[in-house]
């Protein structure tokens, strides 16, 4: 069946969709890592670390892909553990910046290790990634994320994110949860990196830098950081749209920058949101609105998802007043 799909889509779409799928995997890694309140600007680097590891194994030692994938993911896991432990006691902002520094350090280190190609990149990686494989793994990860959201670990993570002190007082081992969750995300991101390197067949130190980590963060926030399929949506949308906007290389990014800025200003809570109190998923507030209009109104209509670190609870993003007004009175 997969061959059916790939044979019938044009080459452009196959390539774009595979890219979107790989980006989604890494974005899901970010979803896990950030679910306990961390803010990682290092995921492109973690992805790269996994990629280099796996690439070395497949290219230089002829390892089979699945084994290399596992080892790469383990490297990501280890990196995640390390980063989580380092940033444990820091406030969110400083921790985020530490991850940034970590990522950049990895870039510089990779530039200087000739064994993996240094500045000339690691080339000659065999092609192992296929459409089917990518989407299979993505599906597994999304399923896992769905289960995670409803699991004890997921709740514990969200508790840590919302208020670490209270979480600890409730008996949650914050250290353990934060580390585990971050490391899981790291492993997933690394897996994404392994796929990527075995698709474009080259691995660069540059691809691990701040700009790319920021890109994944953007997928995460833009798509909706509170729900498990938000990052997937973000990655898909933001990967496919620039490709479709192919006027010319530079103009494309100029538009991308503008669109990104505009959307983030207009809808800061992300495209797909979840109301923390009611647990309803909203897409531009449409689902609850429809429900209400059709007579199935529930007590909490689609309302604002107050971002966890908003300093002023009274200020939610623009455009939310409209949603509130649309709800039932009182």
């Amino acid at each position, binding site marked *: 069946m997969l061959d059916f799909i790939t044979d019938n889509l044009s080459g452009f779409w196959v390539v774009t969709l595979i890219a979107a799928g790989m980006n989604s995997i890494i974005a899901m890694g970010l979803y896990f890592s950030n679910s306990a309140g961390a803010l990682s600007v290092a995921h492109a680097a973690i992805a790269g670390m996994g990629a280099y590891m796996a690439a070395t194994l497949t290219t230089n030692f002829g390892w089979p892909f699945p084994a290399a994938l596992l080892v790469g993911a383990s490297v990501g896991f280890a990196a995640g553990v390390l980063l989580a432990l380092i940033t444990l006691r820091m406030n969110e902002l400083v921790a985020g910046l530490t991850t940034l520094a970590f990522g950049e350090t990895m870039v510089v280190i990779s530039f200087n290790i000739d064994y993996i190609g240094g500045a000339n990149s690691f080339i000659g990686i065999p092609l192992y990634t296929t459409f089917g494989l990518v989407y299979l793994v993505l599906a597994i990860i999304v399923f896992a994320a769905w289960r995670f959201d409803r699991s004890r670990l997921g709740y514990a993570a969200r508790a840590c994110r919302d208020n670490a002190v209270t979480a600890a007082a409730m008996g949650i081992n914050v250290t353990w949860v934060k580390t585990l969750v971050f490391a899981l995300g790291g492993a997933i991101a690394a897996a994404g990196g392994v796929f990527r390197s075995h698709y474009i067949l080259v691995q660069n130190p540059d691809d691990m830098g701040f700009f790319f980590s920021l890109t994944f963060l953007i997928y995460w926030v833009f798509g909706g950081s509170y729900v498990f399929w938000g990052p997937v949506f973000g990655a898909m949308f933001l990967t496919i749209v620039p490709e479709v906007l192919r006027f010319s290389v530079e103009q494309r990014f100029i538009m991308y920058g503008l669109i990104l800025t505009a959307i983030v200003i207009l809808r800061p809570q992300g495209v797909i949101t979840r109301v923390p*109190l009611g647990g309803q998923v909203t897409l531009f507030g449409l689902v609850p609105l429809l429900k209400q209009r059709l007579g199935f109104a529930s007590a909490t209509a689609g*309302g604002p998802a107050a971002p966890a670190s908003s300093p002023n609870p009274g200020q*939610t993003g623009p455009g939310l007043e409209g949603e509130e007004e649309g709800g039932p009175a009182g």
Partner: protein
Amino acid sequence: MLKVTGLEVNYGLVQAVRGVDLEVHEGGICAVLGVNGAGKSSIIKAILGLVKARRGKIEFPEGREIQGLPAHKINHAGMAWLPQGGQVFSTLTVYENLLMGAFGREKSREAQERLEHMMERFPILRQRRQQLAGTLSGGEQQMLAFGRALMSEPKLLILDEPSLGLAPKIVQGMFELVAQLRSEGLSIFMTEQNAREALKVADYAYLLEVGEIRASGPASEIEASEAVQRVYLGT
């Protein structure tokens, strides 16, 4: 002096203030009493323009509608704020804190005179004028906050739980100061948890519970009322 009608303040989905009416008469002290979380701070923030009320009219000083105006304009209209705990600018010196109270008019002769006047009223401030405000004790910071608020020669002074965190002796001195300010013609609006002390000095009082006014009247009446006796004065 100040008239609030039908005030409603929301934080997200939570309604903190549900339709409050109150009035502060010129030259009088008006107290709003209530426990933590009753909504006192929300009322103050709405009056000051720091938070946008969902609904309601706020008139100051005489009939001029100020709801929706930005805080600095409301300050220029003659309102000053003594926040909970003083909230002095700890990275500025005592002197600079006082200057902030007269922001925009620091160079004028009136401001310089006012500065002198403050330092006479609170001699400790003169002593510590070059010190960073963050190094002052709690009581001293409160005094500084008073001075800062008075620097703008306000018509209405808003005190947010002025006795909070202060030693009883200092609290006494502070309420004496408040009474003195009234005799100098200042109108005062105050929120307090310490009902006993507040009712001693206030002219008029309101009882706030979960965002609604439960009782209102001259301070002596409120003091004598059964509800207050039971809940706040512990008899």
